[in-house]
């Protein structure tokens, strides 16, 4: 770590770890930080990953975000939406998305808030969550870690499946469910607790365990000593800047704080 870096850049590096050692899978990072994380993974520790131009073609060089200037993406293969579905069902994919709610089971919601028959707030819809979550590796990105996202009960609308036995019909198979990392603005979590319970994996610099627990609607498992999330190296920062030449990552977290800046001790609920 040779210089100061932003919280968003820390989260990009943490996101990239989700795709380490996955093999030759389609790395789909939805949103600025997950997409940069996937690109960083491919350009550093996991060159075998596959990525798209976010439209219909596979690329071997991650496409930089935003207007491209003289850069012309070079296509190595084809990945229409129909092929993405086939890829999902075949399991050779790892997607990271930002759900609006996540519960203790890892169930996720992108549909809306409230009663699905008459939502208080209608959001995007199920999109690909049911298929993604039951077919291949999934990780989650949360730029605003708080109890409205990490809800105390179940999510209002279960789009992505989780490790909730009550939800699984007798005889149904959860053998391809593979929830990996949750990257937030406070910490990194995984599903490494008993019966896949959500567990704290690392705290971002300056964040206290109690702060994360207060911002999480369900009990959060943690070892006695929790490591600090590793920041970017100079090489990683250079790659991030190259993949995000217009600085779109600066708009992900309000105020674009440094990762090393002092943290407020409580989050509003």
């Amino acid at each position, binding site marked *: 770590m040779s210089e100061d870096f932003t919280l968003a850049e820390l989260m990009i590096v943490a996101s990239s770890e989700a795709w380490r050692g996955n093999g030759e899978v389609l790395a789909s990072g939805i949103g600025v930080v997950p997409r940069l994380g996937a690109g960083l993974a491919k350009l550093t520790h996991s060159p075998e990953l596959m990525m798209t131009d976010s439209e219909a073609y596979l690329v071997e060089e991650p496409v930089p975000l935003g207007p*491209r200037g003289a850069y012309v993406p070079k296509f190595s293969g084809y990945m229409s939406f*129909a092929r993405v579905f086939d890829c999902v069902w075949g399991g050779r994919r790892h997607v990271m998305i930002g759900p609006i709610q996540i519960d203790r089971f890892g169930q996720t919601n992108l549909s809306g808030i409230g009663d699905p*028959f*008459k939502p208080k707030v209608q959001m995007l819809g*199920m999109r690909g969550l049911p*298929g993604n979550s039951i077919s291949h590796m999934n990780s989650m990105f949360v730029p605003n870690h708080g109890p409205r996202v990490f809800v105390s009960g179940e999510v209002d609308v*279960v789009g992505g499946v*989780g490790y909730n036995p009550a939800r699984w*019909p007798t005889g149904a*198979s959860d053998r391809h469910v593979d929830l990996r990392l949750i990257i937030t603005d406070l910490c990194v979590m995984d599903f490494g607790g008993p019966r896949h319970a959500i567990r704290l994996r690392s705290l971002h610099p300056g964040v206290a365990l109690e702060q994360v627990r207060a911002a999480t609607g369900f009990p959060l498992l943690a070892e006695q000593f929790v490591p600090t999330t590793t920041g970017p190296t100079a090489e990683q920062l250079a790659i991030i800047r190259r993949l995000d030449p217009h600085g779109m990552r600066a708009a992900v977290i309000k105020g674009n704080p440094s990762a090393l800046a002092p943290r407020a001790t409580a989050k509003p609920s």
Partner: protein
Amino acid sequence: MFDKTLTASAVVASLRDGMTIGIGGWGPRRKPMVLVREMLRSDLKELTIVAYGGPDVGMLCAAGKVRRLYYGFVSLDAIPVEPWFRRAREAGGIEAHELDEGLLQWGLRAAAMRVPFLPTRVGLATDVLKVNPDFRTVQSPYADGEVLLAMPALNLDVALIHVDRADRLGNVQTIGPDPYFDEQFARAAQRTFVSCEELSDRLDLSYSADARFNVIERSYITGVVPARFGAHPTSNPPSYGWDMEHLKTYTALATEAGGWERYVSEFIAAPEAGYVERVGGAARLAALPPPVF
């Protein structure tokens, strides 16, 4: 030979209240908006709409034409939640059958294959089953005995799709990089109508080398409606991008009293012949840049 060309109003005149209508494209991409607008001008009602939704679904919801909706999402992409769909949903005014995106395709495939359902794990252990209470599971008859979701066929009365090129026989070509699921919509439907940017007498004579862009064979195509810029305000890559300026205006109206009536009177109520002029003219639309992702 024969000639399948007709007008958008003739297409809509052949539709009936209560029909199940599938609309091709994906979100704000390659929607047969010229046909949707003609539906908005009609007194059609109580429709069941099946779509990867964009402004097509939003406008039909705003106009009160949708009774039941099968969708994986309804989005304007850069504007994540379709504003008029959102209003209709939050008012509780439509029977919403929310689906996984792939599950929607599976329903169309079942219809296309003329089977009652296709098995899948997708949707199990989620609220897909809650918001689609008629969905059932099925047990594998083989040694594994696995319980799967039986995704029912989404049988369409009519599919509407937009293509770049068509001929009078009903041959079509879609040039854009992703054909989306237009083929499956057509195969799932009793009748399919296409709007097209360019009409040829014979595609085999004018664009023979591009025959591999033929997304669906002509036996599925009932009628062809020539309509340059017929996908506007959605994109039709590579020839034009979506009209985000227009979509922003459309979105802003969703939070204004009388907003829909204003949108209709400004852009839709007058005949389609003047539509391109009303939204800025052909030169402007031809210059709409493809979106960069």
